[in-house]
C-alpha cells in the first residue's frame, strides 16, 4: 500500500498554479462559446445552442472537479 503524504507548501503552490492555468483556459473557452452562441441565437440560428450549452456545462463540471481536488488537498495538509 502506497504511503500518502501531504503535499508541502511548495508542491501545493505549484499544483494551484497549474490548476489556475487550466481553469483560465476553460473560462476563456466558455466566454467564446457564449459569444458565438449569442451571435447565432440573435441571427436565428438555433442549431448550435444546445451543443454549446452542453459543452459549457461540461467545462463547469471540469472546473468544479478541479476545485474539489483543491478542497481535498486542503483537508489532507499537515
Amino acid at each position, binding site marked *: 500500500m502506497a504511503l500518502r503524504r501531504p503535499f508541502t507548501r511548495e508542491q501545493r*503552490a505549484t499544483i*494551484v498554479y497549474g490548476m489556475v492555468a487550466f*481553469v483560465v483556459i476553460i473560462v476563456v473557452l466558455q466566454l467564446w462559446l457564449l459569444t458565438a452562441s449569442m*451571435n447565432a441565437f440573435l*441571427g436565428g440560428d438555433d442549431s448550435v445552442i444546445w451543443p454549446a450549452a452542453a459543452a459549457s*456545462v461540461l467545462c*463547469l463540471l471540469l*472546473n*468544479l472537479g478541479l476545485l474539489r481536488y483543491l478542497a481535498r488537498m486542503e483537508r489532507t495538509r*499537515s
Partner: protein
Amino acid sequence: MAQDPRSAIDPQINTPGREGLTGTAPVNLYARPPNREQVTIAPDGKPMEMQPPWRRDFPIDALQDQYVERRDFMKFLVLTSGAFTTGQLWLAVQNWWRRRRGRPETRRIASVAELPPGEAQLFAYPGEHDACIVARLPDGELVAYRQKCTHLSCAVIPRIEDGTLHCPCHEGVFDLRTGRPLAGPPRRPLPRIALDVRGDDVFATDVEWRTS
C-alpha cells in the same frame, strides 16, 4: 523562553576545548526539528533575522500568501465559469421559448398606394412594440426590416436616396436592398420581414433572422 530541563544539568561544562566530552553536547541535539510547514519564509527567502523590523513584527509567509491568493483567484474563476454556464442555459431556454411561439401571424401593414417609390413607412410586427420599416426602392421593389440596429438596438433611419439604412448611435450603415451591414460596428444583417403583396395590400408574413 522555556528552559530545556536538560540544560540545567551542567551548562558550564560545554566550554572551549572540552567539546565532545560527556555532557558537553548541545542540549537541543536530539530535539525535534521545527515543522518546516510552520517556518515563516519571507518574500526574498532570507532568514527572519535579516528582515527589516516591520516584517519581523508582522511576518507573512510568502509561499502561503501566494497559495491563498491563487486559491481564491481560482474560486473566483470557477464562479465566473458558473455564470457563463448559466448564461448559456438561459440562451437555450430563450431559444426553446422562441421555437415554441412558432411563426408570427400574417398581418396587413400598408397599401402599395401609400408607398410610392422612394418612400418609407413604419409599422409594428409581429408584436406591437417590434418597430419595423417598409421601404419602396426607386425601382419599385418593396423591402422591410426590423428597425433595431443589430449592434446595440438603436433605431435605424432609411436613406433611400443613398440606398442605405443609417444607425445614428454608432454610425452603422446597412444596405437598403439586402439589409446587410456595410459600415460601422454592426456585424449581423437586419432581420428581414417577409412581405406578400396581394392586390393593393402589403402583408407581413414572417421575420427572417439571419447571421450573414
